[in-house]
């Protein structure tokens, strides 16, 4: 069974629970395969938690959920050393971060201090407490959710932190037809309980390795760089996509190509993922907000005007 079939099984499995969100499931897997993390931005109740749980169950991973509240402390996330009077030593009690798949719910409701503790763990895939560094088990995949910024009582994530998420996805409401199907399924027993894993964690790790072998032609690399550079030159953009963003786009494209059963990246992959990779990495000037221009629209515009490479580079 090749990578594509395996991954499709996972997606099919998720689809049993989440109706009509195949692309979200795909993108989640893309992020997971390329060692990235996802920022889900949407209103509550559209199935964010269900998606993560279904994903965790499908790959047989350990699932943890952290509900971020304003009074949550870093130690509540990464764990704490507790003094044991019996042997007169500190013992580390791992926090919820020490799992495979973490749902960090409403991440923008907690203090920046706690936020950064999570984000550092995401970037390093390890936590350091009292001078002791501990690896987080692999695979490690965080799916953070946040309510849209305009909601009250939130701490917007700083730019540098946002950059650590590979993709930002908006879930969106289901269509009326899909919503009726949701109701239909909700009448019977919760389907999430019936899900079984379709691939093992080891297989997942194997696939993660495979992603790195996907060929990214020089033409594609130059295309990615072109796109990133364009974001930095746009008149509406205050801060464009960083080189880390370019890397993210390339990695995500590789994973997406694997998901589509190809061993090379095409411009279509890049175009498709650019919207999700760039969306949270472009900081707009205030003029853009006055003109009602969003980062997604900027990305669309750049995609439309940047020449797609259709020939081998000269000398190849």
């Amino acid at each position: 069974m090749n990578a594509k079939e395996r991954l499709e099984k996972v997606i099919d499995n998720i689809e049993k629970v989440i109706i009509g969100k195949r692309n979200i499931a795909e993108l989640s897997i893309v992020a997971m395969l390329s060692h990235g993390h996802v920022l889900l931005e949407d209103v509550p109740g559209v199935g964010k938690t269900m998606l993560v749980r279904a994903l965790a169950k499908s790959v047989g991973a350990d699932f943890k959920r952290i509900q971020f509240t304003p009074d949550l402390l870093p130690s509540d996330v990464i764990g704490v050393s507790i003094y044991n009077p019996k042997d007169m030593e500190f013992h580390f009690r791992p926090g919820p971060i020490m799992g495979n798949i973490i749902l960090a719910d409403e991440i923008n409701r907690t203090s920046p201090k706690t936020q950064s503790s999570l984000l550092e763990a995401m970037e390093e895939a390890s936590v350091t407490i009292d001078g002791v560094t501990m690896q987080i088990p692999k695979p490690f995949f965080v799916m953070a959710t946040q309510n849209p910024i305009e909601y009250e009582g939130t701490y917007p994530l700083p730019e540098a932190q946002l950059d650590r998420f590979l993709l930002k996805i908006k879930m969106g409401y289901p269509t009326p037809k899909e919503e009726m199907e949701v109701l239909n399924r909700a009448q019977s027993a919760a389907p999430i309980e019936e899900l079984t894993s379709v691939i093992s964690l080891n297989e997942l790790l194997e696939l993660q390795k495979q992603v790195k072998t996907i060929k990214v032609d020089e033409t594609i690399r130059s295309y990615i760089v072109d796109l990133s550079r364009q974001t930095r030159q746009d008149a509406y953009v205050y801060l464009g996509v960083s080189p880390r963003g370019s890397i993210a786009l390339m990695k995500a494209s590789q994973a997406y190509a694997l998901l589509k059963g190809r061993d090379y990246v095409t411009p279509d992959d890049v175009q498709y993922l650019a919207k999700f990779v760039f969306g949270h990495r472009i900081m707009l000037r205030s003029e853009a907000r006055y003109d009602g221009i969003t980062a997604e629209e900027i990305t669309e515009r750049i995609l439309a005007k940047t020449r797609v490479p259709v020939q081998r580079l000269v000398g190849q």
Partner: protein
Amino acid sequence: MTSIRKNKLFMAVLYVLVFFMLAEWLTPVIVLTETGHKALFLIFIAVGLWMAFLRVPWWFSGPIKILYILWFIIYVYTGNVFFTGEAISFLRTDFGMNFSALTSQNWAQTTDVFRTVLFFVLLWMAIYLIHYWVSFRLSIFLFYLLTVVFIAVLDTFSPYSGETAIVRIMVIGLLLAGLLHLARWMEGHRILERTDKMAMFAVPLVLLVALSTALALYLPKAGPIWPDPVPFITSFSGQGGVGSGGSVGRIGYGVDDSRLGGSFIGDDTAVFQVEVSEGQYWKVESKDVYTTKGWELTENIGESFIYGNSETVDTDFESGEEELESAFLSMEQGFPFVLYPYGTQSFSMEDSLDYQYSTADQRFETYQNGQEFEPEAYEISFTEPSYSLAALRETNPEELAELPAEFGRFLQLPEELPDRVRDLAAEVTESSDTVYDKTRAIERYFSIAGFEYSQSDIPVPEADQDYVDQFLFDTKRGYCDNFSTSMVVMLRSLDIPARWVKGFNEGELINSEGGTDVYQVTNNNAHSWVEAYMPGVGWMLFEPTIGFTGSSSIDFDLELDPTDPEQPDQQEQPIAEQPGSADDEEAAAASGSSFWNRSIDFISDNRWKLIWAFVGIALLGTILFKIRHKWMPKLLVSYYRMGRGRSVRFEKAYLRLLKQLELYGIHRRPGQTLKSYAAYIDSFFGTREMSELTEAYERTVYGGDAESVDWHELRESRENLINRTSG
């Protein structure tokens, strides 16, 4: 997706319309050739179309059609309704006759049955062709256009009246073209064939056709813009021949030369065959009055002499001194006169005959018992005249003034003759002293002054134009009439008597045995040349037309020239002087610069021609460039076909395809990926090929995996697409 081609009702309607269209083709053919049994031919067409409509396999439909044709032959030619023994034996004997006639290339012996079969085969092909157009190409416009042209031409040039037929054809054709356009459109946009969709288009179509037809019938019609072309054309073609006027004439001997000019088309109808030792110019007559447009003959002038068989005749040309030769002419076209070579002594033929010679036009008319007679074969005794070079060298222009008054008519020139013609004649002959040299100078002038021989695109002079002037100064291209008339006129302007002669040139050598050549002379050999009078020598033949060698065959004879011992010195002097007049250095310098001079002369002489040629080439180039998406793919398809399995070639071919699609008008936006572009192309054409090709291309370019691309398999897809964009 159900293609509209699958809709039986729709296709049935198309085939019925096609049947009526074909019937419109058949009707005039049947009417004009007076063939009967129109109904049986129509049944053949109907059966053929019906089987094509039902997609009957060829092994079934073919025999049925052949059986029908055989039955038709039996029924029509023997009256039998069934395949009786008698009928079959008729078929067998007829087949044998035709087969032997065909194998012996005796086309005239084939029977009507054979022609009937050929006609059926033609109908068969027509049915197949239209079936193909309608079912596969979904296009009928060309056939429709041809039908209209066909009926219009027949209506104009034949007794067939297409007045109602053209209305029927318009209605049928518009319906057919409209429905086929609908079919193409629905296919192109992948619209499912559904009755309501079709009705949405078909009902307005029918209404529009009906409305426009009704309106066209009701509205008053303008009269013809041009007069009926038929009398106009027949008035010229009836008198066709060298010397007839009109836009395009048919070459051949004609009587009326009053309006020269116009183009000619060749006509290789045989006129006569002649056995003779050497090819001759065959004279018919001459004309003396130049009218600025052509030639006429002075009326009521000259004398007539009547000769009998083998009697020595007296023409203006003395026979030469060599032995008499014989020429046997067998005519293939009837003329009431004889054709004769220069130096003719006598005529003879089996019938007793009078040869009436007229000094006015030097024509020998033939009479039998006082009636005009067209001889079929006759023998001529003749010797080519020879002229003394010494005598020719003595032809003093001053002697011209002393010629008797009867030469006046050979000096006639119209008053309107432009002065520049006279000036040119004087200029050309400036350095010549004798009459003979002057004549030769004019004869040579045409071949050295950039004149061109051509039978096509030769104008007829307008009312205020002079035929000679137009040729000498404006067009500088023409055929024998232009050259000979011009020479006569130029000679006359120098007071040298000259006349314009008509007849035939040598013809084509078709056989040569034992010193006798057989020449075939056709209408293409109709010719005109010049006779000029050399004082003290007599009339001589001159051939100014480029490419004709008439004068050489009747050349003067140097060896037999009886000359004084003193004279050779005098003769050679001018010849010797010429090379001596320039030293070597000067000659070298002259040849060096003469190349430039000649080039510059050529450019300035042909300035307009060159400009037009340049403009023409530029225009052609532009047009070819503009429509390159039409023809280039076809070249490229074969070009890329030659490459075998090379991925580089595939990439090039693919990029070429992209360009072709761009030219076709489907633009790829800069930010559009090949895949989405391919999807659009495929949805546009209703194909899958572009996506397949693109996937393979992406694998080569982005995946760097050239080996796995099966270029052979993809080639067909690519060619299919290319053809779609260039169709």
